[in-house]
C-alpha cells in the first residue's frame, strides 16, 4: 500500500491531486494499491474525490488535533501505516507536512525524505530526487529503512487523473494526546488570495526599496487577478508577512506567470518558482541571476515598471 495524506478540506486542491498522482504512479510501478488519508477537520469531500482519482481506500480522521498540532497527525498516520503495511507515506512539502514527516518516520523506525521533486523505481526501490544547497544541486536518495515517509514539492508531479472509481470512506480516530502542545488560535493572512492556487503571482523583493512601493503590488495583483508573493528579503524587511514568502523556505508555487519585481534570484528563491510556466524578471541589474530563469526580462527600475503596468491595466480595466 502507498499512503497519501493531505490537509485539503472541501475537495482536493492542486497539491492534493499531485500527491495522489505521484502515489498512484508509484503504486502502479510497485504493484501496490493507494490509500488516501484526509487530515483536515472536514475532509470528507477530499476523501471522496480521492476515490474517484485512483485511491482504493480513503480515510477521514476524527478527534481534532491533526490540523495545527502535528502530534495528532503523526499518531494517526503511524497507526494507519502499520495497519495497512504501507511501504510509503506521501505528504505535502509544506509547513504541516514538513513538521509531521520526520516525526512519523522516526516513530516507524523509517526514513524521511523531504522536498522530493521526482521519484523513479530502480529494482523495486524508489529513488527520490530532491533539491539541495538552495536548489543549486539535485540529490538522488533512497531509504535504507522502509517504510519511507516522503514530502513532495508542489508543482513537481503530474496530478492524478479521474478514474471513475470510488472508495468507501472509512473513519479513524486520533489517539488522545498528552496535551503537551495546545493550539490557541490563528490569524489568517490579511488577504485571502492563495499563492499556491494563483495563476498569476506578482512578487516583490529588495529592489522595490520600501514598504510603500511593495504595497503597490496589491493593486497590480488585483488587476491581474493574481496573488502577491515576496522574496525572503522583502519578508525580512517587514514589507510582507512570512506566509507570502516564495522559495525553498517559503511556498513553492506554480502559476502561469510569475512577476519578479526587484528580486535578484537567490537560488533559495528560484527553488520555489520552478513550477511557474513563465517568469517575468524586472531588475536594474542585467546580470541578476533571476534573468537566467526568466521567460521575459525587463532591465529597468522595477518601481517604474510597476507604475507603468498599473497605468496600462487601469486604462484597459
Amino acid at each position, binding site marked *: 500500500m502507498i499512503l497519501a495524506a493531505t490537509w485539503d478540506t472541501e475537495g482536493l486542491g492542486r497539491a492534493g491531486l499531485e500527491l495522489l498522482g505521484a502515489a498512484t504512479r508509484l503504486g502502479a510501478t510497485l504493484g501496490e494499491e493507494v490509500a488516501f488519508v484526509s487530515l483536515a477537520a472536514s475532509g470528507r469531500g477530499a476523501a471522496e474525490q480521492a476515490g474517484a482519482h485512483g485511491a482504493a481506500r480513503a480515510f477521514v480522521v476524527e478527534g481534532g488535533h491533526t490540523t*495545527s498540532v502535528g502530534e495528532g497527525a503523526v499518531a494517526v498516520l503511524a497507526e494507519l501505516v502499520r495497519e495497512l503495511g504501507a511501504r510509503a507515506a506521501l505528504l505535502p512539502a509544506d509547513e504541516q507536512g514538513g513538521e509531521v514527516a520526520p516525526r512519523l518516520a522516526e516513530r516507524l523506525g523509517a526514513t*524521511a525524505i523531504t522536498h522530493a521533486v521526482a521519484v523513479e523505481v530502480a529494482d523495486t526501490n524508489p529513488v527520490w530526487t530532491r533539491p539541495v*544547497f538552495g536548489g543549486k*544541486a539535485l540529490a538522488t*536518495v533512497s*531509504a535504507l529503512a522502509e517504510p519511507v515517509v516522503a514530502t513532495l514539492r508542489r508543482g513537481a508531479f503530474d496530478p492524478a487523473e479521474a478514474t471513475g472509481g470510488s472508495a468507501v470512506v472509512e473513519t479513524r480516530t486520533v489517539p488522545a494526546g498528552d496535551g503537551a502542545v495546545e493550539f490557541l488560535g490563528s490569524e489568517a493572512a490579511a488577504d485571502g488570495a492563495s499563492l499556491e492556487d494563483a495563476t498569476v503571482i506578482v512578487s516583490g523583493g529588495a529592489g522595490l526599496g520600501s514598504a510603500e512601493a511593495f504595497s503597490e503590488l496589491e493593486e497590480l495583483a488585483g488587476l*491581474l487577478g493574481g496573488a502577491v508573493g515576496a522574496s525572503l528579503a522583502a519578508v525580512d524587511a517587514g514589507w510582507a508577512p512570512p506566509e507570502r514568502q516564495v522559495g525553498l*523556505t517559503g511556498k513553492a508555487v506554480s502559476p502561469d506567470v510569475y512577476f519578479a519585481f526587484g528580486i535578484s534570484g537567490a537560488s533559495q528563491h528560484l527553488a520555489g518558482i520552478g513550477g511557474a510556466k513563465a517568469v517575468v524578471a524586472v531588475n536594474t541589474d542585467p546580470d541578476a541571476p533571476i534573468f537566467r530563469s526568466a521567460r521575459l526580462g525587463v532591465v529597468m527600475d522595477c518601481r517604474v515598471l510597476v507604475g507603468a503596468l498599473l497605468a496600462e491595466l487601469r486604462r484597459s480595466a
Partner: protein
Amino acid sequence: MHAVVLLKQILDWEVPPQRFRIDQATKRPPDDLAPKLLGPFEQNALELALQLKQAGAVERVTALLAGPAEATEALRKALAVRADEAVHVEVEHTDALDPSQTAELLVAAVRRLDPPELVLAGRQAGDWDHGQVGYLVAERLGWPAVGLVWRAELRDGRLHVWRSGVAGVEHLAVRPPALLTVTSHTDLRLRMGSVMDLMAANRKEIARWTPAELGLGPEELAAARRLDLAGVQVSEVKRECELIEGEGAAEVAARVLERLAELKLLERRA
C-alpha cells in the same frame, strides 16, 4: 531553564549557482569552494535563545554543534553574543552524515549535558535542506516539537510560541521540556557581539567531545544511517530569456502584457 541551541556551520549559502560545484568523488561541494558560516536559521535559533534569556525565561544558553574542527568558529561566534557555554562534538565532515546520524550525535550530547528543558534548532540547515534534525532529536528525547517558530514567551510555566502556518500566524503553547525549530524573522536577526565580548569569547573554553566518548563509535554511527545518497548533480538552468525593451516605461509595460497574451499566459482585456 537551561536552553540548548543546535548549531551548524555550512557552506556560504550565497555562492552563486554558476560557481557552485560538486566533487563527484565525495558527492559534496569541494572544501575550498567558499567559506563556511554559521547557518542562517541557526543564527535565528541562537537569537531566540538569547532573547528568552534576556526576558528571564531561560537562565543559561548552551551552544551545541557537531562538525569538523573548523566549525569551532561558529561556537566562538555564539560565545561572542553571550551564549554561556559551547560544546563541540568533533566529526570529520558533516556532509558525510545523514539527518538521523546527526540527530544521534546531538541527542547523545544533550543527554550528557546538564538536563535542558528547551532545545532550539534551525528549521533546516541551509546546505542539504533536509529540515529533519530538530524533529528527530525531539522524537528521540521523547519531547514535543513545534516547528517554524519565530517568537516565544514563557507564561505560567508554558512556552507560548508564534509560528508561520499554512494560512497565517499560529499561536500555540507547549509545556517544557520541548524542542522548537526556528525560522527567519525580522526580529530574529542575530545580534553583533561587542569587541569586549569577542575577546572574552576567544578566552572561553569550548568542551570537545568525540563521538566515541558519547558511545557512538563508527559501528554505532553507521547503524544510525537511514538515507542512502546515490548522487548529487549541479542543477542546470537553461531557459531563454527574451528581453523586452521600448521607448519609456509605458511602452515596455504594454509590450510585456501583449507578449504574455501572445504566449497565452495572460488574458488581455483590450
